[in-house]
């Protein structure tokens, strides 16, 4: 089986400081990989390098493209990478304000990707927007409202709809449930889990919330100071942590 994404020795520094160093992993179709670690451990740097938002200093990111098979994303031209970013890839930001256009209606937000890849039929675009708002449990009467009139949970769901409308195969999520209260978090996780399973998506989820990875991720990668210190099946890592830092992380979770 061809891996969907293969990362080899990815390194990114900020001047003298390490962002992430020598990170390698493979991700297979339909698999969800969780990346955990404390603030400043290089999770977001890694994710942004993978998604093409940051240019890494060294390493390779090989993605199994629909048309030409495995290709090095970093060697692609900017238009190709942008095209990938709005067809096969999706990026869900922690803060919906970073991922949504706040002054454009919910329907326009969902339709933007479709229009960017060439959809030119208003009725079709709108029908798809209605369909996707339904799938993320937003009433279609809200289609012409701006995201600024939405609650935090709705904004995050809208961001997910906007990203998944072109049927991507790989979703990058940066703290998708950060800043939401627990009941909203639970519903959002339920939704994400359903979508991932139903659409057969692969996903890379960056978070510091161990409950989120327990629920979503098949495999887990623990990062500290820019390096990967432990990898394994989620349950295995969380139930029997090997590295000292992972043990600390797991034992730090508050029990209710």
């Amino acid at each position, binding site marked *: 089986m061809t891996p969907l994404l293969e990362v080899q020795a990815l390194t990114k520094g900020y001047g003298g400081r390490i962002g992430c160093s020598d990170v390698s992993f493979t991700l297979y179709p339909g698999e969800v990989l969780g990346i955990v670690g404390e603030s400043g451990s290089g999770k977001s740097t890694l994710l942004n390098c993978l998604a093409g938002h940051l240019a890494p200093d060294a390493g390779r990111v090989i993605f199994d493209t629909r048309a030409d098979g495995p290709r090095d994303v970093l060697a692609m031209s900017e*238009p190709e990478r942008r095209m990938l970013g709005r067809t096969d890839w999706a990026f869900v930001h922690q803060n919906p304000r970073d991922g949504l256009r706040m002054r*454009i*209606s919910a329907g*326009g937000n969902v339709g*933007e990707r479709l229009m960017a890849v060439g959809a*030119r039929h*208003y009725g079709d*675009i709108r029908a798809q927007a209605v369909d996707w708002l339904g799938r993320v449990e937003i009433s279609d009467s809200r289609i012409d409202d701006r995201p600024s009139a939405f609650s935090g949970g709705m904004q995050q769901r809208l961001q997910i709809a906007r990203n998944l409308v072109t049927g991507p195969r790989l979703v990058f999520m940066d703290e998708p449930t950060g800043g939401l209260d627990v009941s909203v978090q639970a519903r959002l996780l339920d939704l994400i889990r359903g979508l991932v399973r139903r659409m057969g998506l692969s996903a890379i989820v960056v978070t510091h919330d161990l409950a989120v990875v327990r629920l979503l991720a098949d495999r887990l990668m623990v990062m500290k100071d820019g390096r990967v210190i432990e990898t394994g099946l989620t349950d295995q890592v969380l139930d029997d942590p090997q590295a000292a830092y992972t043990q600390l992380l797991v034992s730090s979770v508050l029990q209710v």
Partner: protein
Amino acid sequence: MTEYNFAYLDEQTKRMIRRAILKGVAVPGYQVPFASREMPMPYGWGTGGVQVSAACLTPEDTLKVIDQGADDTTNAVSIRKFFEKTAQIAVTEKTAEATIIQTRHRIPETLLTEDQILVYQVPMPEPLRFLEPSEVETRKMHALQDYGLMHVKLYEDIARHGEIATAYSYPVMVEDRYVMSPSPIPKFDNPKLESAALQLFGAGREQRIYAVPPHTRVVSLDFEDHPFDPSKAPHPCALCGAEDTYLDEVITDDAGTRMFVCSDTDYCGARCEAAA
């Protein structure tokens, strides 16, 4: 009068502007940066168009200047006088007799020919500006032909108003490559952008020149199920009776009485004369 160099600008500046114009003609719809000069008028009064006209004028040219279609409005009169004084060229109000026409917000009704140049005054050359505030980003979008956002704007129009409500400065695609702002002409004029004449666009404050060479393909953006509609007021002209021209609505008294008249004064005047 010998105090002014021909057409006000010095020769080096005119050469610089001509280079920008040539580049613009070579890459239709692309906004070429140029070193816009201070002109003896405020920004927003046509400094870009005046500089392009100055660079194009020769002593044999006949100049016509229109503002919203009219030859007798303040802006048109003062720019015409400016070039009469600084270049001593012939001027006219008749579209067919002019070799260079500087315009603000209209394209003349009379079809232009290959011997004519139409110079537009452009306040905001970047069609994506109100969607994307960063110049770095909009340039990248042009370079990568990344124009999905433009349709998002049109989508929003339909979602909110039931139709594409953009009535002027309606974005166009030039030669299937660059999305371009046609300057604030009414969308009624958009079909006339495919013209036999050379069309030059000058934005003084924003320091950009762009061009549409003769017979270039210019397509107004739209949706398949909401096609482009060059609408106008559903009236004939009250003076000359024309039914196929762009009309100004003129309020004639305090009781709200109004009349619709051609905005192109030369075209309307010629028709009235022919009828009389």
